[in-house]
């Protein structure tokens, strides 16, 4: 179980980092989505992996799973979901305005500095 979750987090993070390093907006956004999936699972497991145990108090039950990471994950999911929507909209606006979806500064673009920032 631990191996499965750990390798899932690892593979998603690796794929996410690969995609984040691409030059065009869409792969970068997909990469960030993968990274947020990975971090959500990671946060979830930070309260230790317990199977079949309730997170809230019940009668006649002695083992519980830690409820706090679940609350943290819920917050993180909501925030990352909203952020992804925002970046898709801004990226779309930039693409429609300049007909170019590179995330780095293009030297040929007018009105753009050339101090080598990317």
């Amino acid at each position, binding site marked *: 179980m631990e191996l499965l979750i750990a390798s899932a987090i690892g593979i998603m993070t690796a794929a996410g980092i690969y995609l984040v390093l691409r030059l065009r907006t869409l792969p970068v956004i997909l990469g960030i989505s993968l990274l947020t999936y990975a*971090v959500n699972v990671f946060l979830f497991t930070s309260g230790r992996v317990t199977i079949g145990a309730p997170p809230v108090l019940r009668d006649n039950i002695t083992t519980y799973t830690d409820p706090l990471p679940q609350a943290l994950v819920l917050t993180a999911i909501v925030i990352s979901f909203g952020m992804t929507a925002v970046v898709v909209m801004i990226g779309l606006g930039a693409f429609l305005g300049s007909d170019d979806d590179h995330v780095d500064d293009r030297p040929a673009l007018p009105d753009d500095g050339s*101090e080598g920032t990317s």
Partner: protein
Amino acid sequence: MTHWLIAPVVLPAILAPFIVLAARYHIGIQRVFSVVGVLILIMISGGLVWATSDGTVLLYQLGDWAAPFGIVVVGDRLSTMMVLLTVVLALFVLVYAISSGWDDRGNHFHALFQFQLMGILGAFLTGDLFNLFVFFEVLLIASYGLMIHAGGTARLRAGVQYVLFNLIGSTLFLFALGAIYAETGTLNMADLANRVALIGPEETVGIRVAAVLLLLVFAIKAALVPLHFWLPSSYAEAPAPVAALFAIMTKVGAYAIIRVYTMIFPPELAVTSGLHTTWLLPAALISLAIGMTGVLAAKKLDRLVAFSIIGSMGMVIVSIALFSPEGIAAALYYIVHSTLAGAALFLIADLVRSGRKNLDLTLQPPIAGAALTAGLYFAAAIAMAGLPPLSGFLGKLLVLDAAFDTRLMVWIWAIVLGSSLVSIVGFARAGSVLFWKATSVEVPEDAPISPAPATMSYVAIGGLVALLAAHTVFAGQMHRYTTQVAAQLFEPAPYISTVVDTPGKLSETTTEDH
């Protein structure tokens, strides 16, 4: 328990939706509510600074639930000082935004401005690492909207870079929080400080990784080289009042570094020895050098100011990275100075832009109202470059003095003084091209006459410069206060006991089970 401590978060949180819902089509009403809100915030923050100035740690437990299970808001000298700095800056930025008409060039400027304030003030006041993340997100979401305010392709492209970089930063933050929670089982800062000290020397892997990840996140926020790449484009392309407000956002990163790495991971802690205490200082020195070189190399005024922000953040982090009371005190003095000077420079750049339509550092006809603008630029540039008589010089002197006894003293002195010279040349070159040599350019007959900026714009920038002057005149008092702030930071026991030991609802029946 005082309820005033939560007011800097709650008031903007109420005002912003009110402005969106009730005053959406009336820019006048929006302006009134926004300015009045910021004025009330200044009064509340002044009161909080007064209440904490004797060393009291104010605690507010939301819903009366005790830490570490409940959410707490904590105000000590450092938090309240940063809160006051933010709202004072916000007032001048807001006056400029209104007088220059920036707030009317797109929708929802004032609502986003209030949400931005809510996020920044919350980040300064929270006593919990996860809520620090949440408030970071609040201020980032608002800043995404403000950053692309008034639209334009160049601004949207810079906005994409800004948002993507910060999303990666947020993901890193979550990884760090997960690692910390897995290691310690808490995210409350005071509780963490207790528990990290209990970690044995043989099981430090997780907590060391978490400490480094957290430092990376804060370094992204503070634009520390090599994590500064998001800053020049986004600050240069952002609307001027927004860029001026963003001058405080890099300081949120500096604040978080100060808070976390004096309380949770103090420099004498064995489990994280050899990490930030070793590597933060060289990185900060490199950012100082690169930032000030960027000032000299920039081809446009807005980029120049953005690089001067990177350089000044380098100076702040150099001083923080000494991890001594003198260093932190000097850093806090410099934070106040560089926030005001950076904001003033961004607003001055906008005055120049309104006169000549671009900010290229090339010879062009003089702008309308050039004399006054040039005077303000002169004062702000002197302050930013750290020449006497303004506060940049005193701040730099304090940093150099704090670094005098340290191991890397030669490097710190050499880079601080060398980069100052480079930045002076950069600022002088920009000023002479923009204002001085411009008078020798023939104005074409058919050139459109651009109107002089509004008087209130000058009042806003003049106010910031006047605050810089006051920061210089009252440098003795200010430095005494920042020394007290630093002393409180290096004696975290009262803070920790106030947060952890204050009982809340049901506390007497709760049995602690770690």
